[in-house]
């Protein structure tokens, strides 16, 4: 059986600039695939491209792009919008701007179900209230009648999550869904997603920068850098033996209680994500990489560090062990 979502060599360009330069990933039914990477590396653009929601001027190309066995590359806007919000749902990154400020939370939530499923108003309201309860919002009746600006950031984000789940999607693309949530609620939402996965086999593509979340819930992690997936591995393997120097850098940036002293600077990756000019060859991380050498200016091989562990780097697989030894 093919994967729920299969993306091969996705490329997205805005005018002349490439925002995504070859991202491949798969999400199986019931799997959580996490996409991590620095700001501006193209995670959101990847997600939007998958949903067919790129901003004007964005061009999408891919060697393969299929959802539940169906090629969605050339699907028309009508068919796409029938899938969106129904079988594949997305929680977008900006909860404030993606809720309509002039409409109550309740009518926006019920809209989704009524449009896709032709549910009656009462049914839709029931469903909305149930989901708000499940994402940890008490007094759903009160919240349904409120406008987005009357909710706190965390409440808004939970409303977005509830909205994405209204139609029991098969695939959920969640772009930083728990960033505005405190830890206890985050834990609750993550448990809810896990439940849905166990119940309905929901496939999740989770974009996050919280490596704590990644470590705890991901089955698989892809690390993106400058529009490319530079490393992809099962979670435990990625944390135990990161291959790409960028992945290693990321792992040092996290303030871990007890590990980094207060007042001392955190580990950070110097420099910023570079602009990648058209026709760029070689490793896009080389200017920030402590291990860069001459070979990094040429085509980079995709190396296997394990059966399911790939990295886009010139360093030999397992170099970290040897470096440690």
């Amino acid at each position, binding site marked *: 059986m093919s994967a729920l979502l299969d993306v091969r060599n996705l490329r997205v360009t805005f005018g002349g600039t490439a925002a995504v330069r070859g991202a491949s990933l798969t999400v199986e039914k019931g799997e959580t695939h996490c996409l991590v*990477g*620095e*700001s*501006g590396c193209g995670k959101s653009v990847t997600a939007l491209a998958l949903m067919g929601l790129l901003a004007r001027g964005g061009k999408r190309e891919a060697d393969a792009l299929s959802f539940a066995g169906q090629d969605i590359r050339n699907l028309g806007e009508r068919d796409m919008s029938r899938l969106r919000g129904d079988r594949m749902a997305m929680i977008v*990154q*900006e909860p*404030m*701007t993606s809720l309509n400020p002039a409409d109550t939370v309740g009518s926006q939530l019920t809209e989704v179900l009524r449009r896709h499923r032709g549910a009656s108003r009462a049914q839709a309201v029931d469903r909305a209230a149930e989901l708000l309860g*499940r994402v*940890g*919002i*008490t*007094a759903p*009746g*009160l919240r349904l*009648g*409120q406008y987005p600006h*009357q*909710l*706190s*950031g*965390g409440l808004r984000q*939970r409303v977005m999550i509830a909205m994405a789940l209204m139609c029991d999607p098969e695939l959920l693309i969640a772009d*930083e869904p728990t*960033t*505005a*949530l*405190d*830890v*206890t*609620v*985050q*834990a609750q939402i993550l*448990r809810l997603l*896990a439940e849905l996965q166990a119940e309905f086999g929901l496939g999740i593509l989770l974009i996050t*920068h919280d*490596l*704590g979340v990644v*470590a*705890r*819930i991901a089955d698989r992690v892809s690390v993106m850098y400058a529009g490319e997936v530079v490393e992809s591995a099962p*979670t*435990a393997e990625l*944390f*135990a033996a990161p291959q790409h120097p960028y992945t290693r850098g*990321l792992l040092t*940036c*996290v*303030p*871990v*209680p007890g590990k*980094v002293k*207060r*007042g001392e*600077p*955190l*580990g*950070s*990756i110097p420099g910023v*994500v570079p602009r990648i000019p058209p026709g760029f060859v070689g490793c896009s991380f080389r200017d920030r990489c402590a291990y860069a050498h001459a070979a990094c200016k040429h085509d980079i091989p995709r190396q296997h560090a394990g059966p399911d562990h790939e990295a886009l780097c010139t360093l030999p697989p397992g170099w970290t062990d040897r470096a440690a030894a």
Partner: protein
Amino acid sequence: MSDIPAIEVRGLRRVFDVRQGLFAKPRQVVAVDDVSFSVPAGSVLGIVGESGCGKTTLARMILGLLPPSSGDVLIDGQRLGDLDRRARARLIQPVFQDPFSSLNPRRRVRDIVAMPLVAQGNIAGDEVKRRVGEALERVGLSAEQGSRYPSQLSGGQRQRVAIARALVLRPRIVVCDEPTSALDVSVQAQILNLLAELRKDLGLTYLFISHNLAVVEHVASEVAVMYLGRIVERNESEALFAHPQHPYTRALLDSVLTPEPGLGVPDVGLGDTMPDPANIPPGCRFHPRCPLAFERCSHETPKLTPNEAGFVECLLAEE
């Protein structure tokens, strides 16, 4: 440094009326309930707490964006209401959470950063230009990026713009409402390092709101824990993280997801019923979710019990 606290808040309370329908009686949401604290100049007070517990409401009242229902805010010893808008802007500035909605999409970055200077009304054009350039450089943005529109920047870059805007006037106090929670780890590290460096160089005082406990532990000298509109525990950062006293603080600390694969998501026993600010439980407001609650908690309101540098509001601690 003077003895006057940079921020002092006395008995602050804010109630929102929420209309449910056209004719239904409005319900009252108590977002902030009788909160008092002070922040000494040059220190960092971290505020943590559940989403919806009133952190942003508190910050907005301190910034003068929202009138309190009752209570006072004193900035640098002066009542907020007595300061005119320009003087207030020179004292206290915000950095908001959402770098997408905190920058005007129709203005260029350098005009956004120049806004506080222009609003002062008495700073010459050249001077404005020079200080904007300085501020942009300070936060690590190039002059070329100054002439872009916010939509042409990434989240981290936008947050740098917001920080530059907050710092051009060289204020004494910066209120950071979850400044890094929309950013990825490496940018978060850069922004936190930037904020720490700026604080050292410019002697700033921060009110630092975040729900990321690891971040708060890293930056704050003191921490206040909010629950349902009240501060339930306050202490020095080290003490609070080493031995949390309030059961809610403990639950918070236990919910932190450290990057250790395979451990799964912990269930700290708070249950799935979230608090309803329109319907605050009697007695201790945390008791319906508290794993340690006992009979007295449901009718007896706990008093403040002092600890090392602050207090805790729990019946268990009173004993």
